């Protein structure tokens, strides 16, 4: 066995330039595959982060239409509902229009109960609750703009015009990698009070409700019950699971995501072609040698081990190189994007696992044609072959 391993290692290094180019070819393809999968993962981050026990109630016509704050108490009465909170998409500009991160006006009393994935220091949270213009920001925002507790953040309002001043009173940590680490949250009351003075017709309106339910299995029934409450009203609602709500967001970009998904699998095909081509060339050049080995008594299984082993070495090394390059590539890609474009951007362990498994399978698949040829070639023909 060790001797066979030695032989296949030496065969792999027989044409060093070709092997190195193949390893790099596979590496680049694996890197591209992992990068694409990571981008797709980033698109789906919201869906991934969805909790099974959260429903979103929004305006039935569109998410952009507000709902009355007065719905809150009625929703809370629906059987199966354990907590109701709400949020408002504030938008606004921080520093300039290229600085993107979510800015939400939230119900500070209930919002963080429904979203336990935002981990915040208890003391900071209490201070936040006491100050009307206090804000909690994600650790990513704090890092990006070098913000500390007590710093002022000035927003130029667009949906809610005017200058808005907030004081950072809390910095939250995401519970895990699927949690957005770059959201800014502040008191809905602070926004609403000012809107009440400057644009009274827009006061008392929120963007959407987040409804925590007791049993995720009741999601459909609770959703139906909530929507029934507001049937034939001026602002009918549409309630769905948080996952479905996030997926609706993605539907606009579904063609792009589908294209990226397809591309990532096309890349697997490219790896197969790169490696398959190398293996076919190598096996053809060694037709004579394989015939000699067969004459000496080497079985088809042994020849398969030699050829598939060589192919696997190339694919495993290529995959390793690709994955090593993937980490800086993903980091560079994120830096090259406008700030906050993908707040959740990380290489999923599944992506690495899938790349490794793909590498192994492609390594095996790439050896099938040369193995078949070598096994099918009669010894006397192989001995006559001039490579």
């Amino acid at each position, binding site marked *: 066995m*060790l*001797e*066979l391993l*030695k*032989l296949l290692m*030496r*065969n792999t290094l*027989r044409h060093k330039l070709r092997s190195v180019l193949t390893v790099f070819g596979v590496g680049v393809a694996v890197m591209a595959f992992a990068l694409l999968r990571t981008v797709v993962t980033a698109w789906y981050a919201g869906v991934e982060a969805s909790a099974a026990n959260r429903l979103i109630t929004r305006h039935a016509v569109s998410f952009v239409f507000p709902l009355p704050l007065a719905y809150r108490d009625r929703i809370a009465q629906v059987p199966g509902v354990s907590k109701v909170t709400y949020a408002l998409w504030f938008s606004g500009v921080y520093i300039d229009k290229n600085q993107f991160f979510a800015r939400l006006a939230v119900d500070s009393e209930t919002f963080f109960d429904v979203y336990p994935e935002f981990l915040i220091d208890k003391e900071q949270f209490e201070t936040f609750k006491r100050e009307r213009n206090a804000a909690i920001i994600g650790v990513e925002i704090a890092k990006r703009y070098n913000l500390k507790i007590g710093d002022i953040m000035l927003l130029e309002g667009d949906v809610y015009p005017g200058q808005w001043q907030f004081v950072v009173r809390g910095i939250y940590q995401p519970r895990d990698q699927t949690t957005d680490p770059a959201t800014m949250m502040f008191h809905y009351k602070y926004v609403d009070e000012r809107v009440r003075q400057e644009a009274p017709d827009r006061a008392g309106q929120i963007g959407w409700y987040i409804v925590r339910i007791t049993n995720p299995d009741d999601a459909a029934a609770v959703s139906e019950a909530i929507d029934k409450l507001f049937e034939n009203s001026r602002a009918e609602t549409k309630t769905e699971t948080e996952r479905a709500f996030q997926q609706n967001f993605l539907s606009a970009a579904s063609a792009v995501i589908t294209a990226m998904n397809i591309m990532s699998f096309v890349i697997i095909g490219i790896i197969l072609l790169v490696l398959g081509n190398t293996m076919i060339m190598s096996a053809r050049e060694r037709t*004579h*040698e394989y015939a*000699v*080995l*067969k*004459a*000496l*008594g*080497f*079985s*088809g299984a*042994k020849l398969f081990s030699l050829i598939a082993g060589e192919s696997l070495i190339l694919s495993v090394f290529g995959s390793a190189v690709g994955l090593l390059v993937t980490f800086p590539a993903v980091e560079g890609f994120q830096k090259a994007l406008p700030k906050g474009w993908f707040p959740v951007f990380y290489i999923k362990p599944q992506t690495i696992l899938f790349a490794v498994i793909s590498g192994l399978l492609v390594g095996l698949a790439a050896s099938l044609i040369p193995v078949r040829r070598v096994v099918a070639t*009669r*010894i*006397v023909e192989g*001995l006559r072959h001039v490579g």
Partner: protein
Amino acid sequence: MERPLIEVENVSKSYRRDALEIPVLKNITLSVPEGEFLAFMGPSGSGKTTLLNLIAGIDKPTEGRIFVGGTDVTELSETELALWRSRNVGFIFQFYNLIPVLTALENVELPLILTPLSKKERRAHAKTALSVVGLDERLHHYPRQLSGGQEQRVAIARAIVTDPAILVADEPTGDLDKVSAEEVLALMERLNRELNKTILMVTHDPRAAERASLVRHLEKGELA
């Protein structure tokens, strides 16, 4: 009376080229006793190499049967044949056919990978085989670092290392200069004489054939 080591019975071989059936060997019958050094001579295309390949079990006859050491090799499956060859046949080719990425010692050890011997035993056998051919100083040389004659001697060591019943040599001196050819032939003669190896050799060279104990001529696929 002792049964011959090799018995070729009414063997014919033909190849198909498109619709054409080309006969290469016609109804060959031959017996080779153990310890024989038999040379096949004849013009190109007479079927010498084909007959050698059939006896060595790397090709199958169209008709007839071949027994080697009592085994009908024509009845064996490809897998059985591979195993049989590894135990019973040593090959010596015109162009040596050593594996270029392996040293002389590793090349000789190669057929032993298929045996249940331990690594230590394999090494010892390979070294012995190389010392028999006078190359114990070249164990760790790669084929490209050896002369043609030395390469052929490594190939002979590889052929004898499993102690096979027969050695088949197809133009073993065809690619060698006169001196190297003499050395290789002397070695083969010694293997036959001292170790009682049964050798079947195909050659065009009358001087090589002189070393054999018996010479058979083939003409147009028939034994003369």
